[in-house]
């Protein structure tokens, strides 16, 4: 049986098609999930893609976090279901408290779209195991609410437990504390990051690099070996 990876569409989600395509290119079976769904359709993992769910009104991710499918995903994640939150998806994960901290307006107050360099700090998570710790990758970044914040104790704890999964390299594009671009939960099944691996899976489009493909091959590898 092929590996089924679900991609959730909330009202206002934008990068769902790209995430589905990335899943397909990596060799898994993409499955569309709708925010009102009351079942996860037997997927083996879930991607919460980027975009502006509910227009990012109130706070990014704040409204979608309460959708029916999130109840299933929150429960699933606690039992080990692999979940990747990209950009808006990361914001949904922090709003759901599946990941600690919060995302604030960029320190320069502008939307920023650029090719961003990151370092993979933790290559043991479900979504990074096809990388090697210390790998530097370049993938698109595009957001206006991308400044990762948490209190000092939480940050220290994240560092101590190796849960900072990605750090910005060269330039911190938004004032994220400790250059944090992405984090993981304790178990390593839930990962969130602001930049967009799904936009970097084909040599021709986007930035012309395929550095993001590893996220999707990682989960495939993890699920197949499990």
């Amino acid at each position, binding site marked *: 049986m092929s590996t089924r990876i679900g991609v959730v569409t909330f*009202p*206002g989600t*934008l*990068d769902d*098609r*790209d995430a589905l*395509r990335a899943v397909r290119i990596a060799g898994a079976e993409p499955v569309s999930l709708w925010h009102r769904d009351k079942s996860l359709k037997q997927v083996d993992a879930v991607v919460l893609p980027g*975009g*502006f769910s*509910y*227009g*990012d*009104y109130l706070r990014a991710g704040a409204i979608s976090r309460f959708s029916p499918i999130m109840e299933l995903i929150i429960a699933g994640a606690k039992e080990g279901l692999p979940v990747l939150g990209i950009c808006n998806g990361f914001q949904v994960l922090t709003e759901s408290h599946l990941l600690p901290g919060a995302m604030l307006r960029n320190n320069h107050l*502008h*939307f*920023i*779209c*650029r090719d961003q360099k990151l370092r993979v700090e933790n290559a043991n998570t479900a979504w990074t195991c096809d990388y090697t710790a210390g790998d530097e990758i370049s993938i*698109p970044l*595009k957001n*206006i609410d991308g400044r990762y914040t948490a209190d000092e104790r939480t940050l220290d704890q994240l560092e101590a437990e190796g849960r900072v999964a990605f750090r910005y390299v060269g330039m911190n594009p938004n004032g994220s504390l400790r250059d944090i671009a992405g984090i993981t939960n304790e178990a390593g099944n839930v990962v969130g990051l602001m930049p*967009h691996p*799904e*936009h970097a899976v*084909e040599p*021709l*489009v*986007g*930035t012309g690099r395929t550095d993001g493909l590893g996220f999707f091959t990682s989960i495939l590898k993890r699920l197949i070996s499990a």
Partner: protein
Amino acid sequence: MTLDTVKHAEQTPDTPLPWAELGLKPDEYERIVEILGRRPTGAELAMYSVMWSEHCSYKSSKVHLKQFGEKAPQSDAMLVGIGENAGVVDVGQGYAVTFKVESHNHPSYVEPYQGAATGVGGIVRDILAMGARPVAVMDPLRFGAADHPDTKRVLPGVVAGIGGYGNCLGLPNIGGEVVFDSCYQGNPLVNALCVGVMKHEDIHLAKASGTGNKVILYGARTGGDGIGGVSVLASETFEAAGDSASGRGKTAKRPAVQVGDPFQEKLLIECTLEIFREKLVVGIQDLGGAGLSCATSELASAGSGGMRVELDTVPLRDATLSPEEILMSESQERMCAVVEPQHVNRFMEICEKWDVIATVIGEVTDGDRLEIFWHGEQIVDVPPRTVAHEGPVYQRPYARPEWQDTLQADDAAKLPRPASGDELRAAVLRLIGSPNQASKAWVTDQYDRFVLGNTVLSQPEDAGLIRIDEESGLGVAVATDGNGRYAKLDPYTGAQLALAEAYRNVAATGARPLAVTDCLNFGSPEDPSAMWQFAEACRGLADGCLALGTPVTGGNVSFYNQTGDVAIHPTPVVGVLGVIDDVTRRTPIAFAEEGQLIYLLGETREEFGGSAWSQVEHDHLGGLPPAVDLEREKLLAEILIAGSRDGMIDAAHDLSDGGLVQALVESCLKGGKGARIVIPDTASDSGSAAGDPFVTLFSESAGRAVVAVPRSEELRFTDMCGARGLPATRIGVIDGDALAVQGEFTIPLDELREVFEGALPALLG
């Protein structure tokens, strides 16, 4: 307040109406009375006044725009021409592409963020209404002087608005323009372009047919947006009918500012596309300027029957709105569809799925009238064509301004030029560090260019290029260009230069230009000088399109871009769409491979009228713009396309404002590689400028491009150019980490980058 019904109007023929306040001329009002055989009701007056406005009726421009149809080149690609929401072009493999550029200039000056945001929203709905999925946007912009305090208010707001709306919709922004000139100080230009893709069989048109079919309004609730003027109808006049002297103050003045809700628009797009997929609509129209007045009258006018609308069923955001105001409201994010009765339920289900409010507000009738009711009483009874398609047409007087000769006589050739290598070097740095020539990344980094995952080329490339079929690699390229300085010197040539540049930009990516859209930004049509500029620009564009074989498929006119008597430079903005069969063949601008040869294609003449150099170094505008040779443009395009298809060129960059040196700097910086350049000296190869480094580097002769040719392809490439008769001059090689012009100067890439990329951030913070 008594409701001004049709019956009431018949009974009270002498009631004075505020037609003048609504912008109607006495003879226009007379015509309305004549059409109706009685005085109009307030609601009818509201509809006529807004639909007969310049913006909706094109009453001053129509006689000139006609040429786009009359002189249209024979083209098999055109599926839908001018007159619909947007033109549609066949791009092969069963795909059709629709694209259009529109202005939102005045609203963006009043409220930059919302004005620009709703400009994007409006053009996206136009594209959607054709049946297409919107796939990309572009934004040609013009602002006042870069260092003027008001520019710091307008520009960041406009850019944030375009980004805020477009990013939230999930449409990649793949290009545009940012131009500064003090002539735009009080009249910034915010033009927005959208591209959409569909299959041929999915094309939809705005018409209401089939007696008994339902008219459904869906999307946002209707509020008091953008109806400033018409509130007079709701307030003084009828309040005080027969007693106009009482002048009793009334309801709060309605906001003339429209506020956009991109989230609502995103839902509207997805919802509408799902409705199209299930083939549930007979006709569809977006609501833009003139709101329901426009949508209902245009749908009815283009269809076969009449239409009956129950206006009180329209969902409102503000319950106090009068029927006149509801008809005029320009609330955003609304669409109007004509649906067969058996499909209404499914239509509603899809709307519910997307949280979109939808309401049946009327139906198609077998008559030929547009009839509108308010709580059962008839307030509108008009022949829809007279509202929508048979508005007034003016032959405005026009005359070549007397200052035109003086301006053209003020030749840029006399301006002092850099004489030494050091002076040239300094001039290059000032040029690329000037606001118009510097990197626009400060702007474009605020736009999402990756979303949808099909962006092959975007800023700072010559044209945006989008893949439309993942399997076959079919793609389309779009570029927009316009140079108000050229057009001021000669509007006929200026319009052709805009066309030629956009055409060239598309070809430079390897795509074959197919069709044109345009946004004509001018001063007051009541000023014969501005009207002359407009007439000349239209004639130039129509002639140019005929010569290039690229029909105009649609566009937009924006008049009254002037403050007092002072108009902006005439600014025709031209968008060209091209097709590429395989996007892997696209040509980027970057010089990426050391050792590749740099060729200059075309001829360089001494042409500095309206040039960037004359502006930056001398703040001068005079003389004639560069000459246009459209046959040469076609030849250049064929070479660029063939070079890309057959793998003979690895980079190409068109030459336009700033000339050769500007293009070289951009290609070097994009690829991160330097270039060693030798100024050509054989006259036959490179035109009259041979041997003169200043002219070679800074002249703005049209019909040129630089390309990077792999050594292995050199012979094949030069043979092709030779056989086709296109001058191709080898001017250097990609090499090192500096731009070096032999015998003149060397500028390290780092220094170029700092100046080129630092300029706008320094100005805008």
